[in-house]
């Protein structure tokens, strides 16, 4: 009796495995490009996968393997990379959970002739052929002031609500912004305050800006925490539409403020474009139609081409602008 039950259980276990294994079948496409993400089930990356499929459809003969671990761990991504190496895929485009930990596995992939690039979150230079940044510091610095200027045809006073005074990214973007502010006549940056990326502190700093600058026309917040707090402060003060809030934010968090009119537009990367560009670059590198070398250019289909720096990274495009016309589509994504 015991024995038969055990055999039965073995059959069940084996049956489960067998049935799960026929879920996917290999396709005989010309090229297989793996889009490896930090973890599955994240809206941002699902959108990137959509972009990758778009690129594959455009190219033809390309199979996209969209994969990643369940948790955002380096060891999970290594397992994934090992199985991709074993399958002899043509290219791996990865958004890394750790810039150092993946280097040995990705090196091995490159040794076996697999094209390796990183995008969004980079891998150390020795572990990839090139890295695709969604944008660049000068492009971001320009975009945040341009968005304010576009809605202020007569110019006016604008203030910056940043993260902490020591936040590297924000300081670089503000510096880049100050370099180009002269290109926007009438725009006058009157103050920079710091909300430390805390909602309540950012909210109070935004209130302070409104009370100390009577002619304030816009608040630029190049931080996703600050921009939401500023929009809230402006709405609460009943000044939605009078004082414009712009900067860098997430569509899901900003949708309500775009609707209320506190923010006309804001920017952040477009994940669909990012997945599209990563696929195009992988394809061109794997096909040998482009080379990853300093100063080189790689075509990215409808997005033009990317120029590589000395450290073999490049910027995809201007940050993507979100406004009333597209916010509903993207608020579901990230």
């Amino acid at each position, binding site marked *: *009796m*015991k*024995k038969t*039950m*055990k*055999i039965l*259980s*073995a059959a*069940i*276990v*084996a049956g*489960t*495995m*067998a049935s*799960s*294994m*026929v*879920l*996917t079948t*290999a396709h005989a496409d010309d090229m297989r490009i793996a889009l490896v993400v930090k973890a*599955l*089930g994240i809206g941002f990356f699902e959108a990137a996968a959509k972009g990758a499929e778009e690129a594959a459809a455009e190219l033809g003969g390309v199979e996209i*393997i969209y*994969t*990643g*671990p*369940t*948790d*955002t*761990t*380096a*060891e*999970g991504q*290594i*397992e*994934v990379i*090992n*199985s991709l*190496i*074993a*399958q*002899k895929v043509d290219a791996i485009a990865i958004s890394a*959970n*750790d810039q*150092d*930990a993946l*280097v*040995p596995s990705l090196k091995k992939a490159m040794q076996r002739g697999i094209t390796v690039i990183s995008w969004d979150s980079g891998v150390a230079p020795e572990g990839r052929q090139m890295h695709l940044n969604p944008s660049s510091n000068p492009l971001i610095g320009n975009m945040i002031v341009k968005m304010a200027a576009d809605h202020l045809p007569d110019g006016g006073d604008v203030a910056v609500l940043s993260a902490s005074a020591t936040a590297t990214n924000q300081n670089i973007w503000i510096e880049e912004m100050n370099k180009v502010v002269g290109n926007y006549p009438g725009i006058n940056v009157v103050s920079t305050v710091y909300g430390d990326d805390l909602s309540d502190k950012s909210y109070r700093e935004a209130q302070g800006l409104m009370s100390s600058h009577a002619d304030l026309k816009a608040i630029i917040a190049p931080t996703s925490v600050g921009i939401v707090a500023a929009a809230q402060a402006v709405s609460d003060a009943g000044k939605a539409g009078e004082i414009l809030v712009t900067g860098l934010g997430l569509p899901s968090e900003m949708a309500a403020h775009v609707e209320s009119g506190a923010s006309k537009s804001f920017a952040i990367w477009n994940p669909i474009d990012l997945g599209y560009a990563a696929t195009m670059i992988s394809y061109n590198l794997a096909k040998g139609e482009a080379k990853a070398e300093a100063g080189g250019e790689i075509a990215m289909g409808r997005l033009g081409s990317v120029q590589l720096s000395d450290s073999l990274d490049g910027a995809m495009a201007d940050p993507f602008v979100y406004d009333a016309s597209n916010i509903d589509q993207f608020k579901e994504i990230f």
Partner: protein
Amino acid sequence: MNHTDTTQPATPANRAPLPDRMRSPLLRVVASWEFLLVVVAIGIFLLNMQASPYFLDPWNLSDATFNFTEKAMIAFAMALVIISGEIDLSVASIIALVSTCMGFAVQMGADTGMLIVIGLLVGAACGAFNGFLVAGLGLPSIVVTIGTLSLFRGIAYIVLGDKAYSGYPESFAFFGQGYVWWVITFEMVLFVVLALLFYVLLHRTSFGRATIAIGNNPTTALFSGIRVSRVKFILFVLTGIMSAVAAICLTSRLGSTRPSIAVGWELEIVTMVVLGGVNILGGSGTIPGVVIAAIIMGMVTFGFGLLNVPGIVMSIFIGLLLITVIALPIIIRRTRLRMTR
């Protein structure tokens, strides 16, 4: 005081060959859980060969062993803990804390030898803390180790936040990335050596017998002169040390420490142990079973990976597997009871 022959204590010299086992040795082997696991393992091997042309390649298989070697090292110690009727769910968090401490030591300029010592000490300390709460204070281990699961990883998160430690010495990379010969990795060798050591410990020493006795009935074990608390304390320290060994291998393999390292491993390790035939209620289990279970889980993970089955499906599979192997023996027992009535 009339001693007759029949009441004399049985010594090896005069013990009669009693038919204490109703089945022939061959039948016993065939009906054993381990034999069943071997059959399943061969089945999965063949399925994998069928399903993917890339499976049967020495280098691919060698890469795939990393899926289970580190987890199995902990599973050996976990098997003993579960056999003794306890459980340790904090193992993956011990990895995180050990790795964080080693990363900190690297920033302070520690060399490879120093890192190993620090890693093992931190692991042993974590295990001793669990052991003290369970064996010393008599608290239920499931509650204690759920607590330390948050505690140990919490410390790692406080120290590291969203940052990472890297810059491990070159020689440290050998433990997780080194090859001993051809496709044989250092981790494989360590896996085999530890399997043998734990086999001897559980099946060939009085400590192992004591562990099984405690799992069957702690009160009886205590009255038989077994120092129950001490054995349990040692088992938790041992699990801490094995978690540290796994942490050393994993950190060496990654060359970097993040607080999310090895998150969720406790589930896979417990599944490995239970699939290996260890009774989740304690009292029985074997190391060979755990070894085969580890290989099975590694092969299934790799097989799924080759077919690009999303990791989420793998989690579902592990969950179902865990429930199945825990439920089956209980269902079998109930069915047999009903049939004998």
